[in-house]
């Protein structure tokens, strides 16, 4: 009986060895906490430094402006105050504090009991009569100023008479415990107003009803 021819099998390749172990890099023996701490401090400085510096730079410059013998507002550096003719609508003294296109109109005194009511009266009697396409934010924010007076605040935008660009603004009505009302009407061209808003809020917050 003849043996069946055998099929030559391909040579089996030798199994490659496992990779040799490699030397271990010496571990760093240094102060491992210091560099991450520096990273953390730089991060904090970058994230919060702007707010801190802006606060330092926002300082009252010059004497406070007294409007209608009832409210004192201290313009921040760079802002200038100009008296306005009493509004034909409200008939109360007014002062305009401005820097570039950022403006804060202060009207006082206005007899009032409630800041929300004063705010609504100003919107309907002044803003609505002087503007087209006026939009006022629906939610009225109420708060107490550092002076103890209660305040109500809304945002608005619209086209106003004799102003070529669309205006946006923030209106704050403040009423002191003895019933003296003050209107703070901060405004500026749409898109620019945001750059003046922080200063305006700071001047409003720092105002004192005499």
């Amino acid at each position, binding site marked *: 009986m003849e043996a069946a021819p055998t099929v030559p099998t*391909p*040579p*089996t*390749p*030798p*199994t*490659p*060895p496992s*990779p*040799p*172990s*490699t*030397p271990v*890099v010496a571990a*760093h023996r240094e102060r*491992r*906490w210091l*560099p*991450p701490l520096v*990273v*953390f401090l*730089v*991060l904090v400085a*970058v*994230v*919060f*430094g*702007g*707010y*801190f*510096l*802006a606060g330092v*730079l*926002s300082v009252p410059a010059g004497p406070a402006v007294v409007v209608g013998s009832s409210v004192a507002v201290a313009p921040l550096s*760079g802002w200038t105050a100009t008296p306005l003719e009493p509004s034909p609508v409200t008939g109360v003294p007014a002062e305009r504090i401005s*820097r*570039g*296109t*950022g403006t804060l109109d202060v009207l006082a005194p206005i007899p009032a009991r409630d800041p929300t009511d004063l705010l609504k009266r100003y919107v309907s009697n002044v803003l609505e009569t002087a503007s087209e396409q006026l939009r006022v934010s629906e939610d009225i924010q109420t708060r107490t100023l550092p002076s103890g007076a209660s305040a109500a605040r809304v945002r608005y935008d619209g086209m106003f008479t004799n102003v070529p660009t669309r205006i946006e603004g923030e209106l704050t009505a403040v009423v002191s415990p003895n019933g003296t009302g003050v209107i703070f009407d901060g405004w*500026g061209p749409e*898109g*620019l*107003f945001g*750059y*003046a808003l*922080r*200063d305006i809020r700071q001047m409003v917050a720092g105002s004192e009803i005499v």
Partner: protein
Amino acid sequence: MKGSRDPLDIRRLHWGTTTTLFQWRQPALWLYLAIMALGLFITFSEQVVFREISPPGWLLAWALVLLYAAPVFLLVYVLDLFEREPMSLVVAAFLWGAIAATAFAGVANQGWALVVARILGPDVASEWTAALTAPVVEETLKVLGIVLIYLIARGEMDDIMDGFVYGAMVGLGFAIVEDVFYFMAIFGGQPEGVFTGFFVRVVASGLYGHVLYTGVTGIGVAYFVSRRGQATLARRWLVLLGLFAAAVFAHFLWNSPLLDFFPAEPWSGADWLVVPFAAAVKGIPFLGFVAMLVYLARRRERRWLDAVVGNEVDHDGQALTEEEYEVLKDPRRRRRARREMRARAGPKAAALLKRLQRSQINLAMVRTRVASPNDPAMERQRAYCRSLRDALLAMPGAAPATRSG
């Protein structure tokens, strides 16, 4: 190339030392995780708002930016010719840009915008805030991510290409989240607006921007940390701060009203053709600068390989033939050699050839970590290379390919 000898000090390289992100004993890792957790909270809150603006627009925005990010990620990752960075670190860099840097940049930019408005007034601020605040704030926050990656795995950043890879990944992560922000908050968030934003920010401008800025800064960081003992401290600082300043300047130019040839909105007709041109005017000079840096870095990597394994061609151990060395230097020729091997001798032979090529590169890596070419570790690696070649030659059909590379 066997006659070429590079005088560079190869001992400072740590090729082949693979480290993952998870170095639990490194304080830098814990700082990274803590900042990321806070950033994730901010980013998540922002994305929830964007999703409410328009769910289909939001999904489309993410689909489009990921479509852009995937090839860029791959391209940057493979730029490092001989030592791919560990994926966990690369992903960590990407996530730092996408989550931590963007989240904190949003907060920081607002604060510094107040400073600009306070100093320059609202009118100037409205035009210049983006140019004066974002470049410094964002480039700083992004570079902190590169520094943390370095602190977590110091051995991984041993040449300037490594810095470019990590930096570009941070920049890519930042770019895609910022793009989604623009699509949703600036371009309206509806699908039509998202497509418009995609055209402006990715199609017309995608070649320029954060990937380049942070890539360049990453080169500066890598130079600073990898040139100890080779360059003076003053020179290392000069390179680091110089490249950081170059990135900040390019970013400033992009954000500023200078050289602004973008047509006034709303765009129609030929305006859409002007947009890529306007973007190119601002972006191409810096793109050219980065391309030159990357070219020089890659050429330097090749020089390193020459310096490290060029001697091996002559070495008695014969871990590397001259033909193999010529193939090894060129990634495309390595891939072609494996394809030819697969066609001739099958996939197992191609896989073995790949192992041989990798072990020969590892030989270079081992050489960077030992003092002498006769170190026992080098002998072991040479023996391993030889055994792989023997195994390959024993496979039917493989021998000619091995000899020809």
